[in-house]
């Protein structure tokens, strides 16, 4: 079973190489290779579910011991992230088949996409912080190039800004890792907890790591790069960035280190709670004034990431379950929204909300799936977003943080209002004369949307089962700090 772990990183890496070598042949070859690779990663991750939940400890190491070699291990938390990555990447690579036809040199796109998937799998499997960091760097560099993929002015500008801020973030991480090692003498997640107890200088390392992760996860006030990068990238890339990437590089690291470096109840908790509330409210208010579909979704991401951080910062078992559940839900409905926005942009030629309208009659599948996403994000029972927000708010009240619970509730109300604007502006109302000839997008684009919309409903209906089997063990893995 342990041979599965290197395969999860190796398969996308090898596929990237094969696609690069085969790039001169037809685009269909690279379509097939990329989709096959992401599908294999999904199957392998699902194969891990049984053993990991059964309590089997699976790990794999290559080369020297400790952070100098490559060590992979998987627990329930890694498993949740692994499933988010693999489901997200399968959906995005199927969506890319038709969507990326409009761009040149599709094969190179797939190379970067697969490198990003390999990097993210390395992040979630890495058994120590250095392995995690290398994964973050691989995925981030692939992302910078993917954001610039269109090569237009705005793509390059967004990518340049993302590169500068992203690099400052990774440098904060490196400085934090170096300092942490020099104080604690280890970088392994399983040994850090015991090694840092009472050691001086760890708090500075904690601050550096926190700044790096906050920049990567685009929490307010570290969010300046996100709206540009996430709205200008090609839509499947936006979906991966917003839905999967920032959680893997930002939130996952925070969850791993939370109970190790940042002791709950300390000043960090207060800082994290404030950052979370700022993100929820500022992201939602800024989303309210956007007229570009994808920009609105990008600001919504900042706001929803605030909910996840709120759950993590409260730190009770219930709050962690809520945070993990919201992480999964946000990945599902944000990918759905970005696919919807991409499909509208491709078929109608614009993503300006004020120029669109009444598309429900022309693009029924996109319209209905987007409406399901709307119910989910705005917290209508029985959709998944309702339960995760409810759990986070209940956990906040239970932990005595009533004020932050109120902030979360206010954020949810603003979310409803800007998504009402989004739905009304794009899918309802009068159909402009110029859009009379718009058609539904091809099947490879709407099938991922239908699947994700079904997942929104399924996760909402089956949430007690989902929480019991998968999220409870993952929350326990966070609490153990290992």
């Amino acid at each position: 079973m342990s041979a599965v772990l290197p395969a999860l990183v190796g398969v996308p890496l090898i596929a990237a190489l094969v696609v690069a070598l085969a790039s001169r042949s037809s685009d269909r070859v690279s379509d097939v290779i990329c989709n096959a690779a992401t599908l294999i990663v999904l199957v392998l991750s699902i194969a891990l579910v049984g053993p990991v939940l059964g309590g089997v400890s699976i790990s794999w190491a290559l080369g020297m011991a400790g952070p100098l070699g490559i060590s992979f291990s998987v627990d329930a938390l890694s498993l949740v992230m692994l499933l988010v990555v693999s489901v997200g990447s399968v959906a995005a690579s199927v969506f890319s088949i038709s969507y990326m036809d409009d761009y040149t040199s599709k094969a190179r796109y797939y190379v970067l996409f697969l490198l990003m998937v390999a990097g993210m799998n390395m992040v979630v499997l890495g058994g120590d912080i250095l392995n995690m960091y290398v994964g973050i760097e691989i995925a981030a560099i692939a992302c910078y190039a993917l954001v610039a993929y269109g090569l237009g002015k705005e793509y390059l500008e967004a990518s340049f800004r993302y590169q500068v801020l992203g690099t400052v973030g990774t440098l904060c991480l490196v400085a934090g890792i170096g300092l942490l090692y020099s104080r604690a003498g280890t970088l392994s997640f399983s040994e850090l907890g015991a090694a840092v107890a009472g050691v001086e200088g760890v708090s500075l390392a904690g601050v550096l790591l926190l700044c790096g992760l906050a920049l990567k996860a685009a929490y307010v006030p570290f969010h300046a790069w996100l709206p540009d990068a996430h709205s200008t990238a090609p839509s499947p890339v936006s979906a991966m960035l917003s839905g999967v990437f920032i959680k893997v590089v930002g939130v996952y690291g925070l969850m791993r280190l939370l109970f190790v470096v940042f002791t709950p109840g300390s000043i960090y908790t207060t800082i994290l709670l404030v950052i979370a509330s700022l993100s929820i409210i500022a992201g939602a208010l800024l989303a309210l004034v956007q007229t570009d579909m994808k920009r609105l979704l990008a600001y919504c991401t900042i706001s929803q990431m605030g909910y996840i951080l709120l759950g993590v910062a409260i730190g009770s078992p219930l709050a962690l379950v809520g945070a993990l559940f919201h992480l999964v839900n946000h990945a599902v409905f944000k990918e759905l929204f970005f696919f919807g926005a991409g499909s509208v942009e491709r078929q109608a030629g614009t993503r300006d909300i004020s120029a669109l309208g009444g598309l429900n009659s022309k693009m029924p599948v996109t319209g209905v799936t987007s409406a399901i996403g709307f119910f989910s994000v705005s917290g209508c029972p029985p959709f998944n977003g309702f339960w995760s927000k409810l759990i986070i708010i209940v956990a906040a009240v239970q932990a005595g943080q009533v004020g932050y619970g109120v902030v979360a509730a206010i954020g949810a109300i603003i979310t409803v209002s800007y998504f009402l604007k989004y739905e009304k502006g794009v899918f309802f109302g009068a159909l402009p004369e110029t859009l009379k000839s718009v058609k539904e997008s091809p099947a490879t684009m709407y099938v991922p949307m239908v699947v994700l919309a079904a997942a929104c409903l399924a996760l909402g209906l089956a949430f007690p089962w989902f929480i019991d089997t998968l999220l409870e063990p993952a929350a326990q893995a966070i609490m153990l700090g290992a």
Partner: protein
Amino acid sequence: MQMYLVSAILVAAGLYGVLLKRNLFKVLIGVALMALGVASFVVTSGNTGSGVDVVSQTVALVAVVGGASVVTLMLVTAVRLHEKYGTLDIREMRRLKG
């Protein structure tokens, strides 16, 4: 102690370039300086007295390699931006909405 000071000066100079310079290449040089500063900070903090710990060396090396790859990508982006705008001045480019 002097080495910490050197690292701090490098990082501060880099930050100055990143935050205040308007020329893309100067921003890029700022990022490169910051990467160097962080790498020397990591090496310094790993100094055990009888030499630098091998893991700290590795972390610094990874930082240098990562920094170099990002700087390369930034160079490519800056050259492409120069092709599109005919200038490297950030103010001359269309300001993306904040």
